[in-house]
């Protein structure tokens, strides 16, 4: 080739750029083509929840019982919607695209033919997910603040907690999707895991309203812990102990999901 000279030097040092970074670069480059539509929808959906549930339904709630726990209903759900949005965006980025990378556009096959390994492939995509979740949540939080639902500067910490939650859910969704042969399993995941979690993990009403036997189910979900922590931070009622406990719990989901994702991808691809 005409370009022979510099090649072998670069070839012998494949680790010059960390693998996860070049994978994230690829995802960002793909995202550049669709960012506008995607950003609008990741931001519009939570805003609709806030408008419909918060102000519409909230009017009834506030009139009949004076809000939830002493705050107007819209302020009660805003931090919940923040965490739930993080989950939705995270899972949205590691479901269809994971099956696609394995079966449809086969991007993972291309990646793994290079010096990259399954660990790089997963880490790079999760780095991109972190970017997606953080930007979506930031925009939402700004709007929520303009609507007067943010009551403490600790809301910035809520942003970090929400991102952690989005990543944890994304890693688990990755591990699940990497086992699938087609997208039927994803429909089940969204219908029976993601949507119920969104509705019943304390996002729109305190889980104390759930029947007693259902409450432990809510405690198990990473979303409830993120919702509870975000709510305390945004409303300025946080105490370090519970918040740190919640963060540690969600982080444990992230670590477990991440580890499973890498293991599943390796078993699927390196055969």
């Amino acid at each position, binding site marked *: *080739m005409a370009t022979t000279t510099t090649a*072998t030097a*670069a070839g012998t040092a494949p680790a010059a750029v960390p693998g996860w970074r*070049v994978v994230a670069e690829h995802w960002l480059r793909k995202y550049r*083509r669709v960012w506008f539509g995607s950003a609008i929808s990741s931001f519009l959906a939570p805003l609709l929840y806030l408008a419909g549930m918060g102000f519409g339904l909230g009017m009834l709630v506030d009139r009949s019982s004076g809000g939830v726990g002493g705050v107007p209903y819209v302020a009660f759900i805003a931090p919940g919607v923040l965490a739930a949005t993080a989950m939705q965006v995270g899972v949205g980025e590691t479901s269809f695209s994971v099956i696609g990378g394995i079966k449809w*556009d*086969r991007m993972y*096959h*291309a990646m793994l*033919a290079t010096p990259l390994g399954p660990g790089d492939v997963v880490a790079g995509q999760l780095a991109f997910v972190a970017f997606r979740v953080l930007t979506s949540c930031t925009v939402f939080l700004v709007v929520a603040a303009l609507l007067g639902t943010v009551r403490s500067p600790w809301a910035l910490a809520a942003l970090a907690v929400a991102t952690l939650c989005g990543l944890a859910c994304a890693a688990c969704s990755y591990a699940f999707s990497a086992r699938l042969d087609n997208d039927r399993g994803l429909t089940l995941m969204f219908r029976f895991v993601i949507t119920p979690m969104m509705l019943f993990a304390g996002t729109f009403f305190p889980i104390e309203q759930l029947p007693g036997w259902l409450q432990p189910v809510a405690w198990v979900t990473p979303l409830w812990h993120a919702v509870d922590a975000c709510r305390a931070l945004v409303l300025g009622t946080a105490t370090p102990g519970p918040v740190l406990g919640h963060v540690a719990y969600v982080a444990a989901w992230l670590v477990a999901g991440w580890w499973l994702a890498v293991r599943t991808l390796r078993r699927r691809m390196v055969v």
Partner: protein
Amino acid sequence: MPRAGPGDGPARVPPRPPGAKEWVDVGTGEYLLPVPDAPLILARGLVKRFGDFVAVDGIDVEVRPGESFGFLGPNGAGKSSTMRMIGCVSPPSGGTLQVLGMDPATDGPRIRARLGVVPQRDSLDEELTVEENLWVYGRYFGLPRHVVRERARSLLEFAQLTDRADSVVEPLSGGMKRRLTIARGLVNDPEILLLDEPTTGLDPQARHVLWDRLFRLKREGVTLVLTTHYMDEAEQLCDRLVVMDHGRIVAEGSPRELIDRYSTREVLELRFDTDDHSRYLADVDGVAERVEVLADRLLLYVRDGESAHGEIVRRGLEPMSSLWRRSTLEDVFLHLTGRSLVD
């Protein structure tokens, strides 16, 4: 990279062969080539199992620098499994494998850094442009951005895609996507280019364009390793090949050698108006060195097709059609396995 065929030892003096060191064997006074004979790929008793199924059943392979080496065989012969093991994306189940002098089990990433891979099914990012595909792929090898950009430009020229550099990949033709995949496989300037069924599914014209590009790479000294079930492709591109069937190697040599060894110079094809061509076996007895019965014709392996045809006419046989041609690798395969390559 020095070109050296299999078995080339130290070159005779003088003149000094290109690429040779100025070291001279004190015993014979011969120039020494810088280990041109060290194989780039070395497999001994290589096995790949998927559960109970044995896809590759103990094959020995040696590929040397600058060689163009082929795996020829029908679908399911174990070619792709072999390629995946060489590409260090599939661990061998048995035997030994060395690629570029390293062990894929422990040095996978380092080996892959120096390989170019053209997989059987395209794995391009169809949402990105032609040029962007080369950029992101080059980055996977840790190449700096400016190097990737420069290289992309010359590779697009090589792949005759310069005027499509900014188009999104999705609507491109199959031949263009294939050329882009090959260009992508060259982005790290690999020492070996692995091509799995490079022209399967392309129309004849696109195949010829692709062969022309691969032939150019071959002339530039790139080591090509390819699988194919097209005998014409193997004849066009391979210096040396192995014929695979049911996970085993059934023959090895250059296309010419294989034809000389396993077939006659010419073949006379006779088509009769019948459902069962074996009925005519007795009628053609003695005309050919060997006869193969296919569903729709008889193949007579002869030294001279024209005189064999004369003999057929003399015997009063009236085939619907008859033609004589040179032997091909298809005939070699038929002889070795009793089956056709493409079914």
